[in-house]
């Protein structure tokens, strides 16, 4: 089924109008907040997971408190890695 030519041009104009609206300021500000929250949880989650792994391994090997300390820092490193990756993704999106 073919669309009439007139309808096609009208659709194009309407679509470009919507695009302009979407690029508006208020929409962007909200997504900035979402991005900021994304980075925060990314960092915290890795630290928490690292610490929990250290705690469990300490229980297994009876090496309290060394592994929990080591894995806390490894978790922090993983968190920074996560944040860098997420930030790179965000830059690619823009």
């Amino acid at each position: 089924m073919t669309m009439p030519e007139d309808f096609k041009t009208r659709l194009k104009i309407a679509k470009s109008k919507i695009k302009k609206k979407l690029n508006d300021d208020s929409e962007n500000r909200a997504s900035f907040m979402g991005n900021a929250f994304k980075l925060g949880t990314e960092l915290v989650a890795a630290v928490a997971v690292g610490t929990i792994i250290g705690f469990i391994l300490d229980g297994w090997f009876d090496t309290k408190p060394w592994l929990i300390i080591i894995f806390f820092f490894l978790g922090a490193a993983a968190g920074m890695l996560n944040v860098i990756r997420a930030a790179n993704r965000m830059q690619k999106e823009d």
Partner: protein
Amino acid sequence: MASNPMQQFTVYRIGPEIKIAGIDLSFTNASLFMVLSTSIILLFLFLGSKEKKIVPGKIQLMAEMFYNFVAKMISETAGSKAKPFFPFIFSLFMFVLFCNMVGMLPYSFTVTSHIIVTLIMALFIFIAVTIIGFVKHGFKYLSIFVPSGVPAVLLPLITIIEIISYLSRPVSLSVRLFANMMAGHTMLKVFGGFVVSLGILGGWLPLSFSVALTGLEILVAFLQAYVFAILTCIYLNDALNLHH
């Protein structure tokens, strides 16, 4: 008058107590609102796809918008290989979105403000993605833990860090959604409480705040559903297209 802002999160039993093998399987208000959101989605999509017109009506237009939105999101972030997973990601996005939106109605219950709900969804995604990765690539999937171009001395350390980073995915995915929803709803109730306690003279300021916060919360509800779905796509992309 409910003055405790955390009271809105209590789960209580509706109807008879059902216990199977020591596990409480009673129907709660959380289950009720999950059923409610699912039925709203089904009704909405049924009405949207009932009449297939070339120039769509309002509901059909909205349904098609959601479809296009998710389809575009998948093809942009995970490529054409992720097409078979469209139904899963679409249902996930719609479920989270409608649970968040139904939670915005007064007197309702926000299912996604409970960490157990979001954690189960995130763990399911995490396990599914891991299985998909192993099925598609076999043991070569483990190479995502070993980035290329790293000196041999640092390799064990980097591998451990990568594994922790991989394991933190379900945690960050679930905590983000849960924390956003719970914090927002608590804040709304706190400001609502201020309106009542300050009375007709001083209550106008917190009232205007809570109107603004309601708008913000609706935006957050949509945004978090979007973030949840897009991160699923990104994890799926890592599993489908190995490139490290």
